[in-house]
């Protein structure tokens, strides 16, 4: 990982289309601004992780549901 020290108001470029600016530093929080072309999605990492997880969830292998149904031993209350 490339590590660069920057102060508030300074920025870095990623390639020649994306600029990341440090807007404000307050305690443990940093406010950053990102200028990027529309076709580059900018999301926080939690959303990126969730998108990957959703894609994996949507392609549950064919036999996974069968395995799951075998795993589930639902005990119904007796009438």
């Amino acid at each position: 990982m490339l590590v660069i020290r920057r102060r508030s108001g300074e920025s870095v470029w990623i390639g020649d289309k994306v600029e990341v600016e440090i807007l404000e530093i307050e305690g443990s929080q940093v406010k950053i601004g990102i200028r990027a072309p529309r076709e580059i999605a900018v999301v926080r990492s939690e959303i990126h992780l969730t998108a990957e997880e959703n894609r994996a969830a949507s392609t549950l292998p064919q036999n996974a549901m069968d395995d799951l149904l075998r795993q589930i031993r639902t005990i119904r209350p007796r009438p």
Partner: protein
Amino acid sequence: MPSIQTRDFGEVPYEPSAELVFPCGIPGFENQRRFVLLTPEQIAPLVLLQSKDIAALAFLAIPVPILDPAYQSGIGSEDLHLLGFEERQPRPGEEAVFLAILAPGDGAALTANLLAPVVINARTGAAVQAVRHDRRYSHRSPVPRELLEQPCL
């Protein structure tokens, strides 16, 4: 009663109140906005979020209170607004349904995304996958096997 073609269980009837609208889709599936929440008894206590528009698209999920009864809601203000709850965390169970989407883990295990629960406004059917801003819960929380073997509540 309307019915829907599902990925896993053929044609399934459902109550109109089970229809959900995700105004922004969910991460990775931003264009998929209409889902139906199905509770086939073969998979209880799990549930199925079935796309209304694509039969092959469905997500298996577990009600969050079953996985973690002490789960602390942490919905961001934008998501609260989309849900129609404004500036206040909804009460789970009464006003809102919390589900964690399940993904395949190692081997036959399943993991649940507690970082980003699906939250449903029980009154309106508005739904979002509310991705937390903290790292208090994992996007790959283990699902203990015993949970799948417990009697129905």
